[in-house]
């Protein structure tokens, strides 16, 4: 299936891009993120990273569907 990936802040700088459309068989954001890491050497996992799917906060083991937009958020630091 095809999904769109968006990288934010430090993740965007590490991946060298803000968004990409990928062909994947990943069923969860966690598996998808690992696939992305295999393409971008500088993209590091980070334990308090967050993830959203289609502008809703999601879990790393949520289900991804065809055409979804998956947003990878490095550790947030508002305020």
């Amino acid at each position, binding site marked *: 299936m095809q999904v769109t990936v968006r990288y*934010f*802040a*430090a*993740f965007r*700088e*590490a991946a060298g891009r803000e968004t990409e459309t990928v062909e994947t068989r990943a069923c969860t954001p966690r598996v998808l993120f690992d696939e992305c890491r295999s393409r971008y050497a*500088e993209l*590091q996992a*980070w334990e*308090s990273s*967050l993830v*959203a799917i289609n*502008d*809703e*906060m999601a879990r790393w083991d949520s289900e991804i569907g065809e055409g979804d937009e998956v*947003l990878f*958020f*490095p*550790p*947030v*630091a*508002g*305020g």
Partner: protein
Amino acid sequence: MKRFSVTTRPIDLDLFRGQLTDPRCGAYVQFEGWIRDHNEGQAVLRLEYEVYEPLAVKEGETILSEATKRFGILRAAAVHRAGLMELGEAAVVVGVASPHRAEAFDACRYVIDQLKVRLPIWKKEHYASGKTEWVNCRRCAEHG
């Protein structure tokens, strides 16, 4: 006026506070997050906030609703800066008005605590040394 908003301009504190006045309320608590000149030993010149606004606004509204229900306050609002900021400016402001002060303090504290960990907002510090760093993300930054 939306209770939670994001702005690229300096926050107008009079306007912000004005929206929260309420004759039923005897207590008002306001929190402001200011840009400090140091962080972990490095001199900070300025800050940059990246905000993913669609989700930040949605989550910010959710947090304000939670605080309203949980503490029984009458009014709450918050605003967060996006983009480049100078020292001494307010990066975030939270205001809570309530009949009595105990719940105004508790609710204001709850809102800022939650905003800091749940909003898709990232802070990049610009140091006097010329370096920049994403706060909370040392390892990412080394590679970024």
